[in-house]
C-alpha cells in the first residue's frame, strides 16, 4: 500500500465560484469590496466575514465594504442556512484573500525590486527593506484578480491572526440604531407603488370567482391583477392597497378547502399518514442481550411558526422581459431558479438582489412574497412594486416548522444500563425550499392559472445533517440502536425549514429519556452522560456548563435544575446547557447556563449573541409556542393567538465559549435549541417530578402529565 498526502482542495464555495474577483476587489478610494454569497439575517455573518478578510489581507476592518449579495455579480453560495456560513463562506474568503494577498506581494516584489519574503503588509500598505513601499490600491490596475483560485493552502497561521478570534463590533448595528435604512421594508425607490395579495382564510381553499368592481373603484388604485387563483391589487400607497384588498376580499368566492388535522391529537395524525420510511442508522451489539425491561416513550412537538417580527416583503420591477427583484430570501440564486420556472424566462433575465429583512430563522414567506411582487409588478407599467404581507398571512400562509412525533424504545438490562435503543420519527419533511426541484416551491405558483402542485416537503440527506432525522443518531456510545424516519407523504399544514429542522425534537426526546434512565438508576444525570460519551469535546462542554452552574445546586422546594446536551448535526457546534426553573403549575425559566464549542470562534461576542438568542428563542418555543388550528383554518394569526416570550419572562443566560482556534469554525445559530429544550424539560421533572413529553410545556400539559403519571 502506498501512502500520499491528499491533493489540497479548494473550500467548497470557492470551488464552485473560483474566480478571485468575484470575492475580492480593491476600489479606488482605499477600500476593499468583499462579496460573499451568504446574506445577513441578523446573525452577524457579514461582520465575521469582514474580520476574516481583514486578517488575511492585513487591512483595517474599517476599509472593508461588505457587498450585498446579488445574482448579478455575487458568488453563488446556495442558501444561508444550516449554520454553514462560517464554514462555507468563511473558509472560501480566508483562502481567496490569502491568495489575493500573495498575488499582490508578488507584483510588489517586482515593482520594488526586493524579495517577496522581505515584504510586509500593514493596513494595505506593502513595504520592504530600504523603506520601499506601495499598496494594494497602487498595484490594483496591474494585478488582475480575474484568475481562478488555486488549491495550495496559504492562509495565515493561527498565531498571526489579529482580527479573527476577537469580538469586533458588528458593522450593521450603527445603521440600525440611527434608523438609516437597511431593511428592504425601508427601501425608497422612485415611483414605488404598493401591492397586496388576496389569500384565503380557509386552508387549501381556491379562488373560484372574483368580483373586482368594488376594488377598482377605490382611490389610488393602479391595477387589479388576476391570474387563475392568484389575485392582488396595486395602489399608489399602502393604505389604498389595503383598502383595495379589503374590497377585493368581499368579491371573492372560494372553494371548500382541505381539512386540517386535530390539533389535540398530533401524534395520532402523524402516525396514521402514508409515509416514506428510511432507516437512518443501525448499530448491532454482539452478542445481543435480552433486556430486563423496555421503556417506550413518545415525545411530540407542535408546528412552530417562524413568526418574524417583520412581515415578509419584496420589491419587483419589470423592464421589458427582464425583472429586478429585491428580497430578504436566504437563497437568491435558488429563488431566481424558481422564478425562472414560473415566469418561463431564462434565469439571466432575472436579477435577484438581497436586502436585509427581520430575522427569519428558516424558510418563511420571504421567497413567496418575491413571486407575489413579480406577478403584481407585471401590471405596474415598469414601476417598482413593493409587496408586504399582513401579520395574519405571515402567521397562516408561510411555511411552519414541522410537527413531530418521536417514539424511543430503550432496552435496559437488570442494572438499568441501556443495551438497545430504537428511535422512530413521524414528521413531515423539514425542507421545501425553492430552487432545488423541477417544480417551484413558491406559494403563488400553486395559485396561478396552470398551477404547480404544492411541493411535499422532503428531508435533506443525512450527509447534510438530515431533516426530520437531524440529531436522531445518539452521540452517546450506546451498544445498539436503530433510527428510523417516517416522512409524511401528505401535507395538510405547509412545512419547511425552521431553525434546527428536526434537531430540537430529537434532542428533546433523547435527552429526556436519558434523564429518565439516569433517574431510574439513581445516577447523577451529568455523570451518566459523561459515562456514555467518548468525544472529549463533548465531555468538556458538559463539564464546563456543570462547573459554571455549580452542578448540582442544593435542592430547594419549587426550584429545579436540568441538563441537556447535543452536538448540532453531530458534526457542528457542541452545546451543553443547565436550566434552572421555578415552578408549580406555571413554569418560569430563571437561568440558562451554556457551554459552547464552535472550534475557532471568529467573533466570540457574536457567538455568544447567537447562543443567547437561540437559548431565549428555544425557551419561547418550549414554554409558549404552538401553531393553533381548527379543522378548517389556522387560528393563531396574531401575536395574541401566538404568544412568544416577553422581556419579563426571559431568563438570565450565561454563555461560556470554549475557544479552540486550531479547529475550523462552525456556526452557532442552531446549537442551543435542542439542548435548551431538553434542559428545561428535565428541570421540570427535577422540580415537579413530572415528565412532560409533549411540547409546549404549559400548565395544561403539566397537569395532564401529572394525571397520567398518578
Amino acid at each position, binding site marked *: 500500500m502506498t501512502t500520499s498526502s491528499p491533493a489540497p482542495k479548494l473550500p467548497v464555495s470557492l470551488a464552485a465560484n473560483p474566480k478571485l474577483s468575484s470575492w475580492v476587489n480593491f476600489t479606488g478610494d482605499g477600500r476593499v469590496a468583499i462579496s460573499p454569497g451568504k446574506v445577513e*439575517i*441578523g*446573525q*452577524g455573518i457579514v461582520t465575521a466575514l469582514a474580520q476574516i478578510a481583514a486578517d488575511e489581507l492585513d487591512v483595517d476592518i474599517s476599509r472593508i465594504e461588505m457587498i450585498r449579495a446579488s445574482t448579478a455579480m455575487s458568488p453563488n453560495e446556495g442558501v444561508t442556512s444550516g449554520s454553514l456560513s462560517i464554514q462555507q463562506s468563511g473558509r472560501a474568503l480566508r483562502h481567496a484573500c490569502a491568495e489575493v494577498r500573495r498575488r499582490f506581494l508578488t507584483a510588489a516584489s517586482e515593482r520594488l525590486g526586493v524579495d517577496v519574503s522581505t515584504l510586509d503588509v500593514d493596513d494595505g500598505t506593502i513595504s520592504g527593506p530600504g523603506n520601499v513601499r506601495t499598496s494594494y490600491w497602487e498595484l490594483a490596475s496591474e494585478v488582475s484578480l480575474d484568475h481562478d483560485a488555486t488549491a495550495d493552502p496559504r492562509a495565515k497561521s493561527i498565531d498571526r491572526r489579529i482580527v479573527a478570534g476577537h469580538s469586533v*463590533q*458588528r458593522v*450593521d*448595528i*450603527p445603521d*440600525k*440604531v*440611527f*434608523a438609516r*435604512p*437597511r*431593511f428592504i*421594508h*425601508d427601501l*425608497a425607490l422612485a415611483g414605488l407603488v404598493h401591492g397586496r395579495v388576496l389569500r384565503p382564510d380557509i386552508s387549501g381553499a381556491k379562488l373560484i370567482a372574483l368580483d373586482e368592481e368594488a376594488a377598482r373603484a377605490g382611490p389610488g388604485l393602479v391595477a387589479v391583477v388576476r391570474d387563475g387563483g392568484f389575485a392582488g391589487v396595486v395602489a399608489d*400607497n*399602502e*393604505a389604498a392597497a389595503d383598502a383595495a384588498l379589503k374590497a377585493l376580499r368581499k368579491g371573492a368566492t372560494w372553494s371548500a378547502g382541505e381539512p386540517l388535522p386535530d390539533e389535540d391529537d398530533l401524534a395520532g395524525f402523524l402516525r396514521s399518514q402514508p409515509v416514506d420510511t428510511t432507516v437512518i442508522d443501525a448499530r448491532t451489539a454482539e452478542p445481543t442481550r435480552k433486556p430486563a425491561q423496555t421503556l417506550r416513550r413518545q415525545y411530540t412537538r407542535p408546528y412552530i411558526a417562524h*413568526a*418574524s*417580527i*417583520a*412581515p415578509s416583503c419584496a420589491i419587483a420591477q419589470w423592464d421589458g422581459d427582464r425583472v429586478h427583484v429585491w428580497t430578504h430570501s436566504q437563497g437568491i440564486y435558488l429563488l431566481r431558479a424558481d422564478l425562472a420556472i414560473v415566469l418561463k424566462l431564462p434565469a439571466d433575465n432575472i436579477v435577484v438582489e438581497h436586502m*436585509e*429583512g*427581520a*430575522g427569519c*430563522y428558516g424558510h418563511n414567506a420571504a421567497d413567496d412574497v418575491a413571486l407575489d411582487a413579480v406577478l403584481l409588478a407585471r401590471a405596474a407599467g415598469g414601476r417598482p412594486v413593493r409587496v*408586504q404581507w*399582513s*401579520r395574519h398571512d405571515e402567521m397562516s400562509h408561510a411555511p411552519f416548522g414541522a410537527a413531530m412525533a418521536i417514539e424511543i424504545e430503550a432496552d435496559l438490562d437488570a442494572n438499568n444500563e441501556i443495551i438497545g435503543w430504537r428511535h422512530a420519527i413521524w414528521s413531515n419533511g423539514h425542507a421545501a425550499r425553492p430552487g432545488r426541484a423541477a417544480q417551484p416551491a413558491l406559494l403563488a405558483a400553486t395559485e396561478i392559472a396552470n398551477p404547480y402542485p404544492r411541493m411535499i416537503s422532503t428531508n435533506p440527506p443525512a450527509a447534510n445533517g438530515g431533516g426530520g432525522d437531524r440529531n436522531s443518531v445518539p452521540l452517546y456510545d450506546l451498544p445498539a440502536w436503530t433510527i428510523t424516519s417516517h416522512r409524511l407523504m401528505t401535507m395538510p399544514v405547509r412545512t419547511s425549514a425552521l431553525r434546527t429542522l428536526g434537531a430540537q425534537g430529537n434532542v428533546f426526546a433523547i435527552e429526556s429519556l436519558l434523564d429518565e434512565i439516569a433517574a431510574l438508576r439513581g445516577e447523577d444525570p451529568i455523570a451518566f452522560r459523561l459515562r456514555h460519551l467518548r468525544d472529549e469535546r463533548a465531555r468538556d462542554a458538559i463539564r464546563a456548563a456543570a462547573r459554571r452552574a455549580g452542578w448540582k445546586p442544593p435542592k430547594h422546594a419549587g426550584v429545579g435544575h436540568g441538563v441537556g446536551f447535543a452536538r448540532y448535526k453531530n458534526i457542528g457546534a457542541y452545546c451543553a446547557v443547565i436550566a434552572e426553573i421555578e415552578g408549580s403549575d406555571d413554569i418560569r425559566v430563571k437561568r440558562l447556563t451554556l457551554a459552547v464549542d464552535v472550534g475557532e470562534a471568529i467573533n466570540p*461576542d457574536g457567538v455568544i*449573541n*447567537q447562543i*443567547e*438568542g*437561540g*437559548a*431565549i*428563542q428555544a425557551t*419561547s418555543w418550549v414554554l409558549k409556542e404552538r401553531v393553533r388550528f381548527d379543522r378548517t383554518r389556522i387560528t393563531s394569526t*396574531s*401575536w*395574541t393567538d401566538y404568544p*412568544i*416570550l*416577553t*422581556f*419579563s419572562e*426571559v431568563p*438570565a*443566560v450565561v454563555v461560556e465559549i470554549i475557544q479552540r482556534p486550531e479547529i475550523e469554525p462552525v456556526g452557532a445559530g442552531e446549537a442551543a435549541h435542542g439542548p435548551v429544550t431538553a434542559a428545561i424539560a428535565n428541570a421540570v421533572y427535577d422540580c415537579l417530578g413530572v415528565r412532560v413529553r409533549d411540547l409546549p410545556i404549559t400548565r395544561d400539559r403539566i397537569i395532564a402529565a401529572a394525571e397520567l403519571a398518578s
Partner: protein
Amino acid sequence: MPTLQFQLNGAATAVDTDPDQPLLDVLRGRLGLTSAHFGCGAGECGACHVMVGDRAITSCDAPMWSVADKDVVTVEGLGTAERPHPLQRAFISEQAMQCGYCVSGILVSAAALLKRNPSPTEAEVRAALDRNLCRCGSHNRMVRAVLRAAAEMAAS
C-alpha cells in the same frame, strides 16, 4: 382633507390627512421617516413605537387626530451618529440586537421610560419593554443597554 398639525422631532409639522389615518402610515409614507416599523398593524408587537410626550405609543393603530398638537418623537429625533442619544450609544456598546428590526421601537420605549424614571431597576426596564416583542432573543442585551444608558445619563 383637513390639515393636522403636530410637533415631529421638535419641528412644527402640518399634513393634509384623513384624521383616521394611522400615524405610522403618515410617518413612513408621506414623511419618509422609516425608523418606526410595521410589524402587526394591531398594536401588539411594538415595532412601530413612537414617543408622544413621555409615553411610547403604537403608531400603527394611532389615528392622526390623536396626535394633533402633540409632541411626537421618532428614533430620527432621538439622536444622530454625530450626536447620539445615550441609548443609541449603549445599544452599540452592548451589541444589543441581532436583526434589529424591533430595535427602534425598543429605543423609543426605553427613551420614554428614562424620561419618566431616570434610574429604573432591571425589573422596571423589563416591564417597560414588555409591549415590545423581540424574536431573535436579544432581550438581555437590550436590558443591559438601557441600564447602561441610564447610568451614563445619571453621571452626566
